[in-house]
């Protein structure tokens, strides 16, 4: 026998496995997808509807609210974005993207019909089913409404499963408000929508202040039953969720019932590149959705 090593083909080896997360081929697997609609929301944010091209892949694609995708434009870049649409629609997602740098600026030039790549879904989501039978507080600040739009859609579609549903949405100014066209629809399904801006302009007739102002109003004077049976989902800049969560905590809403979504730099989405680590926890795997207790225990999270 010749003492010669045989080449081991890992691709052939992994064919035997079926669990996607252990499948070697899923690492760089990209769903070729088409941008089916582009709708500008504000000067900075645009909503992109993206559909997986292959019908089989489309059928199999599932996600839970709170999860994110890696969106790729070959040669330009790849970046993580929260899925901003209803989990009941398969193989088609909406991403609300703010112009922030290389990829996102380039995306702003891409029109309907462009072919992009998506990988995912990745990360943890909001435990919507666990919340059944409970009150929910959906609190967003600024672009935080993007990840929140998916649980809102879920709450809307499954309205009967929840008790009281409150959405609190705050932005800097009326011009920054996202998804204005959907507000009526949200209110219609017995969802209390509260909108507040930090700085009004002459046309603004709504509330002015911080989202904590509204939260205070909603929470004050409620019964212990309310506090004990309420879940909160908080999305927004770190300063905002820090204050909101602190307030929720003073009303004794359990920290494990408050959920936040963290944003970090990400290059893989699969717990390999380490760029998203908080302390030494992978935001892409253990997060981006964390309960507040966990966040409190993470070094350098906020």
């Amino acid at each position, binding site marked *: 026998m010749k*003492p010669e090593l045989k*080449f081991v083909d890992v691709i052939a080896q992994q064919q035997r496995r079926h669990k996607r997360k252990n499948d070697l081929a899923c690492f760089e697997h990209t769903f070729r997808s088409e941008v089916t609609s582009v709708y500008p929301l504000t000067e900075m944010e645009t909503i992109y509807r993206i559909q997986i091209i292959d019908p089989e892949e489309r059928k199999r694609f599932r996600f839970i609210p709170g999860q994110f995708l890696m969106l*790729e434009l070959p*040669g330009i*870049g790849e970046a993580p974005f929260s899925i901003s649409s209803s989990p009941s629609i398969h193989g088609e997602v909406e991403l609300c993207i703010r112009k922030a740098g290389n990829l996102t600026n380039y995306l702003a030039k891409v029109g309907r019909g462009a072919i992009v790549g998506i990988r995912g879904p990745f990360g943890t989501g909001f435990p919507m089913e666990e919340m059944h039978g409970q009150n929910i507080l959906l609190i967003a600040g600024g672009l935080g409404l993007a990840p929140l739009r998916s649980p809102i859609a879920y709450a809307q579609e499954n309205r009967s499963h929840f008790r009281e549903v409150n959405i609190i949405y705050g932005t800097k100014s009326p011009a920054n408000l996202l998804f204005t066209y959907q507000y009526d629809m949200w209110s219609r399904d017995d969802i209390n929508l509260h909108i507040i801006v930090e700085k009004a302009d002459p046309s603004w007739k709504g509330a002015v202040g911080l989202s904590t102002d509204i939260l205070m109003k909603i929470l004050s004077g409620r019964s212990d039953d309310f506090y004990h049976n309420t879940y909160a989902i908080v999305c927004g800049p770190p300063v905002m969720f820090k204050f909101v969560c602190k307030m929720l905590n003073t009303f004794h809403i359990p920290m494990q019932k408050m959920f936040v979504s963290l944003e970090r730099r990400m290059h893989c989405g699969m717990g390999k*590149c*380490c*760029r998203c680590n908080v302390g030494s926890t992978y935001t892409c*795997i253990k997060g981006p959705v964390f309960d507040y207790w966990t966040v409190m225990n993470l*070094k350098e999270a906020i």
Partner: protein
Amino acid sequence: MIFRTFKKDELKKLVEILAAHNRIVGPVEAGRDKHGSPIYAFNEVSDFNSIRLNYTTTKLPAKRYFLPFQEDLSSFRTEGGGWQKIIDYNADKPLIFFGLHPCDINALNKLDKVLMHSVYPMPYYAAKRKNMFIIGVECIPQTFCFCRSMGADTALHGFDMFITDLGNKYFVEILTDTAYNFLKSIRTEEPEEKDHVLYMKAVAERNKKFTTRVDTTDLAKILDMEFQSDVWKHWGEICLSCGTCSNVCPTCYCYGVEETVDLDLKGARKTKTLHSCNLIDFAEVAGGHNFRPERHSRLKYRYYHKHRGFVEAFEESLCVGCGRCGESCLAGINVPEVIASVRGGKIKK
């Protein structure tokens, strides 16, 4: 485990036979430093005589063979508005690694945990790792290594065979049938009782030579408690943020991804480059916000990842105690001193 012994001159024969049919990577002398001492490196070798079996530690681990500094994750052919993605795991041939020390074998075992045995295994690593045939050798402890403290001074698995010098012959542990079959091409013998005694003596001799110790008791907890400690500021002041420690570390695997378009616009590629958590842009996000803008916060993170986070996830730390980072650091920042200082020890100025 199956044990054998063979005469010293058989080793050359074994390497020559293997070299005739396979590619071999081994420790060689890459140059001499200003004092005339040899500097070692892992390189592809074809001649047994260029292998330095009694090498101390290589400056860099054999990382480029399983975690290359830079590799393409995929390439694209772009035409009109469309594109096609082409994926290549960049492994095409098996490689024999001749002469890895226990720490470097243990480093691979640690990398396996995160890169192969966690969710989303990394095919680029797996493709190369599965094609490594490893012949380990016993090391000579150096003043800067503390593998013993990290529990990485002996390799129990992760190799195909492992040889120990018994004076006039080699003692070999055989872990895989491939290794067993390879050994058929030379003359080996069943070890006798006196070989076992000799082996035990050799190991004890070596163990006596470990001089540097790191106290790892409750380290994960202590690191947590000392998160705000001022000692980090001291190390941050002298750290150059140059990334050398990560580059020479056999277990550092963090990376960044960049996409580039070919100059002729006909293609594009997605390239992975090893990064270091000590580099300024490691945790910088769009808009310029940096989660770790200060040097000390980045340096601290490196220790947290290795000695706390990894422990939490895999019940062992991501450091084998090879001491390479401390040896290469121009500022002299090294694991034993940093950990001692976090535990409340004095810092040498």
